[in-house]
């Protein structure tokens, strides 16, 4: 294999110095001058109610209040995959805390005071706080207009119900498969809602200037998608795409919460009503919890049939998703899970029904893992229970069933090359799977848990990435891409790709978070697709630039192009060992010929990537026929868990996780994703839980009552393992790993508890209280 100089190296992050020095600026750190206005949102105190009237007259009397806007000012639907959402509530509110109006003032204090004086008259409606209630006969309809909403062609809303989408898989013959089974296990697993808990709040500042230019600065995972949605929603005001400019500073954590469009559109819309002034909308910690996206809750009914040897004969997975009040993004979580809820197994007979169900809780949406953590909790718990019943080792039963390259996925496409078996072997070895644990303390029980994971990017089939690569006089490079560095190190890895192809060190490549005016199109930084997708665009742009360079040198130096190559920022020749031409000598100003003329000119590379083989065209009754997912990333994880049998308190002694990165372009960054993802997974498994009251009001929207781990709560030891089975269409073989690392953690812990105590917890989170009560019940 060719030795790489930059690829596969743990290069220091290109934005590292900014971040450790305190120089990095996030949206709220930017200054907008003395004309900046502040908006305060008015929220509805009902989970479901008709808005009869809104009286803004008192608010407008507050000194320094400039405007009050309400739903009537913006009667537009918007949404990423389904236009079921509104900038401000229209005739009704559908979750507790939904935005109804905003007061714009010179100071935050005046805006707050005004917001308290907006009077809204409501008629409460029956509210639905549970997805199973929402699909009962005669349930109150949350979106009577559902049938009229525009949506992507792969969604199937059920008119006059609360089911916004139903993804159905029918592969083989599940009934027959169950008939052939020697053993069938059927059970229900429940996963509640979770919050992303990025430490930075959502923030957006927008200015609609007197020339009709709308500029939005936002903490965002999706600058181009935001531009697209702002332009679509505000088109009735005469705003076009090229009038909208989104500038994305550093982002203080995303995890899905800053994908798509949520509160940013409030700033964009308000700006059009206070033309000429920049206006800022800041969320606070409470709103981070109840008015951005939340991870969806799910009730999953799972039935698996197996032969005596553990081979799966049939799988039936029915998933009832609590998708919340608006599902413009959540419905695609439901869709993604529908396509993949067989897990990383080769299942001939499968039936999956994944239902996207409206409830009067805050909008569900993307969260690291995109539904896979949720369904794998049940599936990977189920696999252990079946193994126990059959007397087969839990890892062995997985080996007998795992999906291999070329096997058919649930929707009938071929599985990509993958290192799942290697991941299993490496994890089993590192955790010493076959060695029995022995506790020296009678109050401490020890258990080992194991789980597999897989996940595909969930994207439209035409989601694309692009790159401009500009050389400068000294052969340094500006690499323009529109993916977002959320901390995962995306920009660094893009620089490494360009560096490898062009022989320019990463220290000479400047690549920054985007401005949609300057940087070319990117769909979104979600789905763990950006290293793969945008990496391909960068690779193509670098090859484009390299080809221009070599062609220029070939025609001016009369050397065959196939003898030329790049090394150490120079063009060299395989047949003339003394020939070398530094890039800086000609990369902008060209090469001078004997007659004094110049050939060439500034070298600019261009790269575009779209997965042209992807398609969502399929039979809606079976999902067979298309190729909706580009590939899967797979892996395995195991842990040793200690449990205090007096209190139920748990501590993870050791976690091992192996992920098949295809090619780890920067191993230290891949390991960073593994270590960070494991703790986020442990946190959702053991600690975090959203508590809603009977009104649908979130009771713990703060870090005092919704606990995330501190440095004292980390596992005793973490062993990250990188497996590399190249992705054929990935840049240097790479595929994404960002979300995957947290996915196996909850079932891994549930399986460890069962291993330690013979207790099976089927609802998340697995709190000490729950475990303790089960211990008491067991006696």
């Amino acid at each position, binding site marked *: 294999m060719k030795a790489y100089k930059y690829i596969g190296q743990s290069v220091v992050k290109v934005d*590292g110095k900014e971040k450790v020095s305190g120089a990095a600026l996030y949206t*709220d*750190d930017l200054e907008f001058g003395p004309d900046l206005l502040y908006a305060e949102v008015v929220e509805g105190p009902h989970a479901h109610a008709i808005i009869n009237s809104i009286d803004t007259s008192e608010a407008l009397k507050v000194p320094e209040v400039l405007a009050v806007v309400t739903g009537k000012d913006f009667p537009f639907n918007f949404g990423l995959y389904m236009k079921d959402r509104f900038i401000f509530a229209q005739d009704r509110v559908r979750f507790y805390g939904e935005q109804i109006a905003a007061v714009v003032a010179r100071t935050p204090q005046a805006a707050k005071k005004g917001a308290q004086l907006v009077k809204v008259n409501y008629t409460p409606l029956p509210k639905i706080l549970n997805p199973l209630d929402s699909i009962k006969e005669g349930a109150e309809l949350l979106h009577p207009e559902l049938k009229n909403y525009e949506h992507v062609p792969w969604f199937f809303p059920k008119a006059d119900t609360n089911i916004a989408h139903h993804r159905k898989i029918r592969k083989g013959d599940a009934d027959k498969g169950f008939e052939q089974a020697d053993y069938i296990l059927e059970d229900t697993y429940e996963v509640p809602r979770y919050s992303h808990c990025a430490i*930075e709040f959502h923030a957006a500042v927008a200015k609609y200037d007197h020339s009709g230019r709308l500029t939005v600065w936002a903490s965002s995972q999706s600058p181009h998608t935001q531009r697209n949605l702002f332009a679509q929603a505000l088109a009735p005001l005469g705003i076009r795409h090229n009038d909208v400019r989104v500038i994305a500073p550093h982002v203080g*954590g995303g995890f899905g919460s800053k994908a798509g469009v949520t509160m940013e559109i409030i700033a964009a819309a308000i700006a059009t009503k206070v033309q000429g002034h920049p206006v800022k909308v800041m969320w606070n910690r409470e709103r981070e919890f109840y008015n951005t996206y939340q991870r969806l809750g799910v009730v999953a009914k799972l039935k698996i049939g197996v032969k005596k040897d553990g081979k799966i004969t049939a799988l039936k997975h029915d998933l009832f998703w609590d998708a919340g009040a608006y599902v413009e993004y959540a419905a695609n979580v439901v869709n993604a899970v529908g396509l993949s809820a067989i897990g990383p197994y080769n299942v001939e007979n499968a039936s999956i029904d994944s239902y996207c169900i409206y409830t009067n809780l805050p909008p569900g949406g993307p969260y690291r893992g995109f539904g896979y953590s949720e369904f794998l909790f049940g599936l990977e718990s189920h696999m252990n229970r079946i193994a126990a019943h059959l007397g087969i080792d839990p890892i062995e039963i997985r080996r007998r069933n795992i999906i291999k390259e070329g096997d058919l996925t649930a929707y009938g496409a071929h599985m990509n090359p993958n290192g799942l078996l290697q991941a299993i072997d490496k994890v089993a070895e590192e955790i010493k799977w076959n060695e029995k644990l022995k506790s020296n303390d009678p109050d401490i029980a020890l258990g080992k848990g194991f789980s597999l994971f897989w996940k595909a990017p969930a994207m439209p089939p035409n989601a694309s990435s692009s790159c401009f690569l500009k050389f400068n006089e000294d052969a340094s490079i500006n690499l323009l891409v529109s993916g977002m560095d959320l*901390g995962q*190190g995306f920009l660094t890895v893009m620089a490494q790709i360009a560096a490898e192809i062009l022989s320019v060190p990463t220290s000479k490549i400047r690549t920054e978070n985007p401005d949609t005016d300057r940087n070319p199109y990117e769909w979104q930084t979600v789905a763990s697709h950006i290293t793969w997708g945008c990496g391909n665009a960068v690779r193509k742009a670098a090859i484009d630039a390299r080809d221009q360079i070599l062609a220029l040198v070939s025609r001016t130096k009369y050397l065959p192009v196939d003898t030329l190559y790049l090394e150490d920022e120079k063009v060299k020749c395989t047949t003339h060992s003394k020939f070398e031409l530094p890039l800086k000598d000609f990369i902008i100003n060209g090469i001078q010929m004997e007659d004094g003329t110049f050939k060439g000119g500034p070298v600019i590379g261009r790269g575009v990537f779209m997965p042209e083989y992807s398609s969502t065209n399929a039979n809606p009754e079976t999902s067979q026929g298309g190729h909706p997912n580009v590939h899967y990333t797979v892996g395995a994880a195991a842990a040793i868990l200690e449990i205090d049998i007096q209190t139920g308190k748990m501590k993870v002694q050791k976690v091992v996780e192996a992920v098949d990165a295809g090619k780890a372009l920067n191993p230290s960054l891949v390991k960073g994703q593994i270590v960070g993802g494991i*703790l986020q997974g442990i946190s959702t498994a053991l600690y975090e839980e959203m508590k809603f009251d009977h009104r649908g009001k979130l009771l713990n929207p703060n870090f005092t009552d919704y606990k995330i781990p501190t440095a004292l709560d980390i596992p005793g030891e973490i062993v990250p393992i990188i497996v590399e089975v190249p992705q054929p269409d990935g840049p240097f073989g790479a595929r994404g790993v960002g979300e995957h690392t947290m996915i196996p953690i909850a079932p891994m812990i549930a399986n460890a508890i069962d291993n330690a105590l013979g207790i099976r917890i089927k609802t998340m989170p697995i709190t000490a209280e729950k475990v303790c009560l089960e211990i008491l019940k067991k006696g």
Partner: protein
Amino acid sequence: MKKISFKLNGETRFLHVEPNETLLDVLRDRMGVKSPKCGCDNGDCGACTVMLDGKTVRSCLIFAIEVDNHEISTLENISKNGLSPLQKIFLEKNVFQCGYCAPGMILSATELITNNPHPSEHEIKEAIAGNLCRCTGYTPVIEAILELTKKD
């Protein structure tokens, strides 16, 4: 409004403050010092950590009026002389991801190693336990501090 003066990153500054203005808001919005961040406004997350007379405090829980005649320093004060050995090892090891917790985390860690040049792993965890981070899982932060401070 009350006129106060305090030393900010080595420079004596004067300004008028309302009694209910937090130190965090004054630093960020009125003095242009942006490294202290707001992550909860409730004392839970530690992103707003600054040094008050050499000790770390949460600037969202302190009123600006309270620092009259005191000394405040932020991450900018450390960075103005180039990166400290702690910042350098955090950089080299790719410790931070989104970086939002970094200013607070670095100040807490700086305070620790100033007072305790060779801390144990548990002492490190205790010292940074008030700084929430959602990205890193803390392990890289702890390992970097341990590596920097281990006895030769």
